[in-house]
């Protein structure tokens, strides 16, 4: 099993989620995060003083997936999260040693 961690634009979440659903992936965990990178921060003004917000809002999607589906799922995310502008985000892949469904105690690929 692998963990796909995709950091995407918040405005792409709905579309990515829907595309994954159509693909048959329903289980995922979503977190609101902030991030920085190549994308320039936002300059805000408050009472005449400017300041920069360099941590921009992003959404992190985590999906634990059997090895065999990995590439396809990555493809789906890539296709639907991309806008082509700097700040589209990243996908990271990690190894997973075990998955357990709390409700039943099932382990491994059964559990996800």
């Amino acid at each position, binding site marked *: 099993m692998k963990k796909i961690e995709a950091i995407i*634009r*918040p*405005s792409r979440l*709905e*579309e990515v989620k829907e595309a994954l659903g159509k693909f048959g992936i329903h289980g995922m965990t979503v977190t*609101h995060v902030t991030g920085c990178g190549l994308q320039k921060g*936002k300059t805000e003004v408050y009472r005449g003083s400017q300041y920069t917000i360099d941590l921009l*809002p992003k959404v992190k999607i985590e999906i634990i997936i059997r090895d065999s589906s990995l590439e396809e799922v990555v493809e789906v995310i890539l296709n639907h999260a991309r806008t082509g502008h700097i700040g589209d985000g990243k996908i990271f892949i990690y190894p997973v040693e075990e998955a357990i469904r709390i409700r039943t105690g099932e382990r491994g690929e059964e559990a996800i």
Partner: protein
Amino acid sequence: MLAFTSGKLIGLIILLFGLSLGPEMALADDPTTAELATAINTMWTLLAAFLVFLMHAGFTMVESGFTRSKNTVNIVMKNFMTVALGVVIFFIVGFGLAFGADKGGFLGTTGFWLAQTEGMDFGIPLLAFWFFQAVFCATSATIVSGAMAERTRLMSYLVFTVIITAFIYPVVAHWVWGGGWLQKRGFIDFAGSTVVHSVGGWSALIGAALVGPRLGKYGPQGEVHPIPGHNIPMGALGTLLLWFGWFGFNPGSTLSGTTPAIASIATTTLLAASAAAIASMVFSWARYGKSDLSLTLNGALGGLVAITAGTAVVSPTGSLIIGMVAGLVLVLAVEFFDRVLKVDDPVGAVSVHLVCGALGTIMVGLFATEGGLFYGGGAALLLTQLIGVVSVGVWTSVLAFISFKLIDIIFCLRVPKEEEIEGLDLGEHGMQAYNFKLATEVIAGEEAEGLLQAGQARRPVGQGA
């Protein structure tokens, strides 16, 4: 009564032809001073009643602020409906019971649906008096929602609101203000420490005890788990709105703007609340090591409730003492209900309205400049005050008990456990109170973007029509 019969007619004609008529607007004959006095009193009463109305915004803010965000829609709905339902029920039933022709000193029998009001004369137009009394009645009812917050079914609460505004409160109002037996006995409750606040407070106590504490409020060994409110500045705004509204509640209860008593009533109201806030802050600071804002806010309200009975008959110094006592007792009362009796009252309604209401009513027997024990008036008034407090307490708590028991059987008082955990907002209203989002947020139905680009029929004008 000083009637404006001709003025009314002319008024109507003016109304029919708009507002901008000139000198003709002046009555043919100059008004008499008696007519003007009535006009001043009417205006005063109405303005005061508007302030009392605003107290419902205060209650709404206090009760939402001091409860959890998962139950906010529900508590707002309860407060909002209390005033809407309360005044309509009071119109249909309550007013007649309270201020109709007296029957045995116990209740009124005319004036339902504002019919059969011929004999009534309150020195101001009937509807001005009615309006003032209606918002008062709703105030009494709304006290209950806070104590029972976060676990009581909306339907059950609304049914109780109907009962208290139709019957429980009006009867007490009749006893004390409508020519009933307590009034005849010389009981002094100028603006309703007992009539309004204790009636609400007793109902709140019975209701909170019967509905039981919120899940998780008390541990298995009875240990107390505080459940902090979700929005303290909102609670503070509510408290200040209540305080502001009280300047209608108390001085308005003269029903007269021509009496100079309104100045001293406003003053005792201001001083008592201030003294109480100071007392609660200092006492909580000394007792718990840190000054507790939620108790300080409650303290000010306690001072306001306490001065309400005697506001017109005590001196400024008397009001300072009454306020101070209320502020101290409030802190102890909150502790007592929370830790000893273990009645879970999220907003402190019982301590504020019942305890300080009773206390304030009794202290009239001590501090009334005419008749008070400390002013050489003997114990007679004090005794009367005690009788009033006890009899209203018995009446209200018995009726509230029966009502809540019946409601529980018919409608079930409490929401199901799962709903309570999830929050009443989702359970009872399918809605959440807050939807704070990040600066850049997820918009629902992003696909609409594609739609926009594809050039649909309803293309927004702004895109270069």
